[in-house]
C-alpha cells in the first residue's frame, strides 16, 4: 500500500455533473489545486468528470489509481484528503460511502453494490473521463466505431445494427436498424439525422448525464447513423433546462471538428457531416417526433398525424431519422465492439442494457445501467439500497407521464420492453420513481394528469378535453367528492383518450390512471366510499392534531404556522384550530418530538 509520496502519479477526479455542481464541486476542484500547491506535491493531476450517476452522494471525488471514492465531500474536507491520502497514503475513512444495509464503510468505487451490480456499456466513461477533452474519449476507444463504419458500406452498417437487435431507447423500443433502413431507402436530395435530447419526462435524467459526461459517444453515434443513411447534416434538440449539457455538447462538436471527426471528408473518406445544436424552449410535446421536427423548423411544436413517417417526410419534407441520446450512444458502442457482444447481454427480444434514473423514495438515487431482464427487485433493493427510511415499498412508477405504476406483487418482473407493456406500463426513456406508503396513488395519478393536461398542445379534442376531464375527476376523488359513477367514467374516458388522440402524448396520457386503477383500485375506493386517504396525503381528507402528552410546548409549530392556527403557551400543550388550518404540514414537519399527527378528517364517519 505504501508508496513513495514524492512520486505520486495520482489522479483526482471531481464530479462536475449538474447534481454535484449544485453542491459547489467546482470550488472543491479549485481547493484541491490550491492545497496540492501548498503541500508541494507534484505529479498529481486534478481534473473534472461528468456525472457518476450517484448523485444522492454528491459531491463525489475519486482518486486513481486506488479507485477510492469519497462521497459528500465538502470544500473543508480537501486539506484532510490531501494531507492524509495524497501525502501520507492514508485514505480518509470518514468520507467513504456507507452501505445503507450493512453500514460498512466501503473505500473502493467498484466494491460499492450500487456500481458492482451494474453493467455499464454506454455509461462506462461517465465519471471516468473529462468530457471536455476529446483525447480522453479517444484513449478509451472513442471514434473506433466511426472509423470501422467508414470502411463498410452503408448497407453493411445498417445490417450490423439490425443484427445487434438494438431497439430505440426513447421509449417505444422500435428496432433501430429497421428505422435506419427506412430512411436509407427513402428518396430525397437531402437527408437529416436528429438526436432527440428533449428529455421531458419529469423524474428522468439519463440523457442529461450522458450528454454531460460523455458527449462524444452520442456525437460519434450520430455520425455513424448519418453515414449509414446518407445524411450530411444533423441536429441535436436539447431541453432548455439542461444548460450544462448544451455547453458540453457544443464543446464536443467544436473539438470533433478540429480533429476531423466532423466536417468535410471525415477521416479522409468522402463522407462529410456536421451537427447543429437546437435548444428546446419548454414544451414536453416536442419529444414527439413530428412535434420535434416542427420545433426545429422554428414553428409551434404541434404533432401531425403519421404516416407519412419522418423517415420519408421529415425536416423540411426530407427523409429524417430521429433517435434518442442513448440509442445513438449504443450505436457507437455496437460498431466498436461488434453486434455479437451486444447480443450476449440482455434478453432475446430486448438485447443490451437498460438505463434508468432511479429516484423518489429510494436510498441510492442515481443513474444505473443494468442488463435487460434484470428484476425490479434487484434494482430497487440491491442497487437502490431499498426504500428511504426503510418504509414500506408501495410502487415503482416507470415511463414518466406515459407510463404506469407497478405494485410490489410485480417486483420480480424483469425489465424489458414486452414485460413492462404487459403490465400496463412502459420502459419509456428510463425514469424509475419509487414511492412508499406515504405516497397517495390517486394523488400521483392526478399529478401526472396535471402534467399531461398542461403540456397537451391542444390540437386534438380527445387529448385537450379528455385529459382535463380525467384530471377533474381525479381531483374530485382526492377531495372526497367523487361517486362510484365518477370512477366508472374515469375508466371509460381513459380508454377513449387512448383510442382517440392524435399523437403519443395523448395516447399514453391516461396510462397512469389505467395502471393505478388496475393495481390500486382499493385506494381509489377508500377515497370515494370512506372519504379517507390511506397515505394521508390528500389535504381535504386529513387534519392535524397535537398529541398532548408528547407536546413539550416549544412553540416551534406556532412560529412556523403561516395562518396562525396554533395556540398554546410556552411549555404547555398546543392546539390546532382545524377551522383555520390549511393543512400545509409545516408544523408536522418541524415538530421536534413528533407530537403532531395526521388523522382522517372523516374518520368517525367511516
Amino acid at each position, binding site marked *: 500500500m505504501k508508496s513513495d509520496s514524492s512520486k505520486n502519479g495520482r489522479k483526482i477526479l471531481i464530479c462536475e455533473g449538474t447534481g454535484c455542481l449544485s453542491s459547489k464541486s467546482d470550488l472543491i476542484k479549485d481547493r484541491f489545486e490550491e492545497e496540492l500547491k501548498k503541500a508541494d506535491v507534484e505529479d498529481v493531476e486534478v481534473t473534472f468528470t461528468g456525472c457518476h450517476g450517484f448523485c*444522492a452522494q454528491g459531491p463525489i471525488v475519486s482518486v486513481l489509481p486506488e479507485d477510492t471514492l469519497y462521497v459528500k465531500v465538502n470544500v473543508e474536507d480537501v486539506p484532510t484528503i490531501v494531507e492524509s491520502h495524497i501525502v501520507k497514503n492514508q485514505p480518509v475513512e470518514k468520507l467513504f460511502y456507507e452501505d445503507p444495509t450493512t453500514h460498512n464503510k466501503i473505500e473502493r468505487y467498484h466494491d460499492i453494490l450500487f456500481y458492482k451490480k451494474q453493467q455499464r456499456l454506454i455509461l462506462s466513461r461517465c465519471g471516468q473521463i473529462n468530457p471536455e477533452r476529446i483525447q480522453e474519449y479517444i484513449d478509451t476507444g472513442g471514434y473506433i466505431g466511426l472509423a470501422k463504419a467508414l470502411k463498410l458500406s452503408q448497407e453493411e452498417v445498417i445490417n450490423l445494427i439490425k443484427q445487434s437487435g438494438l431497439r430505440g431507447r426513447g421509449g417505444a423500443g422500435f428496432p433501430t436498424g429497421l428505422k435506419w433502413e427506412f430512411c436509407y431507402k427513402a428518396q430525397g436530395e437531402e437527408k437529416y439525422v436528429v438526436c432527440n435530447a428533449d428529455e421531458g419526462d419529469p423524474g428522468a435524467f439519463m440523457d442529461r448525464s450522458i450528454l454531460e459526461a460523455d458527449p462524444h459517444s452520442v456525437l460519434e453515434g450520430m455520425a455513424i447513423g448519418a453515414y449509414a443513411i446518407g445524411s450530411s447534416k444533423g441536429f441535436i434538440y436539447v431541453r432548455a433546462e439542461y444548460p450544462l449539457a448544451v455547453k458540453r455538447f457544443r464543446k464536443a462538436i467544436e473539438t470533433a471538428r478540429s480533429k476531423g471527426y466532423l466536417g468535410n471528408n471525415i477521416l479522409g473518406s468522402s463522407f462529410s457531416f456536421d451537427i447543429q445544436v437546437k435548444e428546446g424552449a419548454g414544451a414536453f410535446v416536442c419529444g414527439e417526433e413530428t412535434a420535434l421536427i416542427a420545433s426545429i423548423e422554428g414553428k409551434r411544436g404541434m404533432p401531425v398525424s403519421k404516416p407519412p413517417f419522418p423517415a420519408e417526410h421529415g425536416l423540411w419534407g426530407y427523409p429524417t431519422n430521429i433517435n434518442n441520446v442513448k440509442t445513438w450512444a449504443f450505436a457507437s458502442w455496437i460498431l466498436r465492439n461488434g453486434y455479437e457482444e451486444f447480443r450476449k447481454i440482455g434478453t432475446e427480444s430486448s438485447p443490451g442494457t437498460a438505463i434508468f434514473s432511479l429516484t423518489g423514495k429510494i436510498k441510492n438515487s442515481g443513474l444505473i445501467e443494468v442488463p435487460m431482464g434484470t428484476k425490479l427487485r434487484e434494482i430497487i433493493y440491491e442497487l437502490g439500497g431499498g426504500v428511504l427510511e426503510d418504509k414500506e415499498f408501495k410502487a415503482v412508477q416507470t415511463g414518466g407521464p406515459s407510463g404506469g405504476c407497478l405494485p410490489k406483487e410485480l417486483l420480480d418482473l424483469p425489465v424489458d420492453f414486452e414485460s413492462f407493456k404487459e403490465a400496463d406500463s412502459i420502459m419509456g426513456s428510463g425514469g424509475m420513481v419509487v414511492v412508499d406508503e406515504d405516497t397517495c396513488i390517486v394523488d400521483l395519478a392526478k399529478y401526472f394528469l396535471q402534467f399531461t393536461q398542461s403540456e397537451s398542445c391542444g390540437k386534438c379534442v380527445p387529448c385537450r378535453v379528455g385529459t382535463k376531464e380525467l384530471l377533474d375527476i381525479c381531483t374530485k376523488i382526492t377531495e372526497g367528492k367523487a361517486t362510484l359513477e365518477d370512477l366508472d367514467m374515469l375508466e371509460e374516458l381513459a380508454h377513449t383518450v387512448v383510442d382517440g388522440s392524435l399523437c403519443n402524448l395523448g395516447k399514453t396520457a391516461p396510462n397512469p390512471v389505467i395502471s393505478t386503477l388496475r393495481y390500486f383500485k382499493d385506494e381509489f375506493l377508500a377515497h370515494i366510499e370512506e372519504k379517507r386517504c390511506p397515505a394521508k396525503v390528500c389535504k381535504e381528507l386529513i387534519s392535524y392534531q397535537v398529541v398532548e402528552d408528547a407536546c413539550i410546548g416549544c412553540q416551534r409549530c406556532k412560529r412556523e404556522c403561516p395562518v396562525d392556527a396554533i395556540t398554546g403557551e410556552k411549555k404547555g400543550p398546543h392546539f390546532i384550530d382545524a377551522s383555520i388550518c390549511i393543512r400545509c404540514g409545516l408544523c408536522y414537519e418541524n415538530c421536534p418530538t413528533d407530537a403532531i399527527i395526521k388523522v382522517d378528517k372523516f374518520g368517525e364517519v367511516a
Partner: protein
Amino acid sequence: MSSATQQKNVNSDFKIDEKTKQKLDQIITSANKDKSNLIQILQETQDLLNYLPESVLAYISTQLDVTEHWIYGVATFYSQFKFIKPGKHIIKICMGTACHVRGSNKIKDKIETELNVKVGETTEDGLFSLEEVFCLGCCALAPVMVIDDEVFGSLTSAKLKRILTKFQKEEEVL
C-alpha cells in the same frame, strides 16, 4: 404553453434604444435572418432583456419578414418565453415526479406564503419571480429549486427560509 398564454402583454412601453437595437441586429444576423431560427432568436433576445417586450417582437417581425402573429404563435407555445418583465431573481421550483413525491408542493406553498407571491407572479418589491418547472434533472437532490443559475437541493422549509433571507439581505446591502 401554460403561463405565457395567460399573461397579457402590459409592457408596451419598452423603448428600443440604439445599443439594444445593435444587439438585436447581432442576434438576428448571427441566426442568418432565417425564420427557422426564430426560437433561437427569441431565446437570445430573452437572455438579453429577461423577457420579450412587445416593441421588440414587432422589430424582430420586420427583420425576419414574418407577421407578428406568427411570432406570437410560436412564442406563446413555449413555456420558456415571458412577456412581462420578471423580478430580479427568478426562482424555478421543480415539480418533477421525484420532487413531487418528496414534497415539492410544500416547498412551493412555503415560498408562496413567505414571499406573498403565486406561481407566475413577481413580488411587489420586484426582487423575485416564481416559476414552476417540470424536472431540472437533479432528481437525486429532490426537492430542488433553481434561483437564477444556482441549484439548491434537498430543500426543507428551514433551508428554504435561509436561502431566501440570504438573497433579501444581499439586496439590502446594495
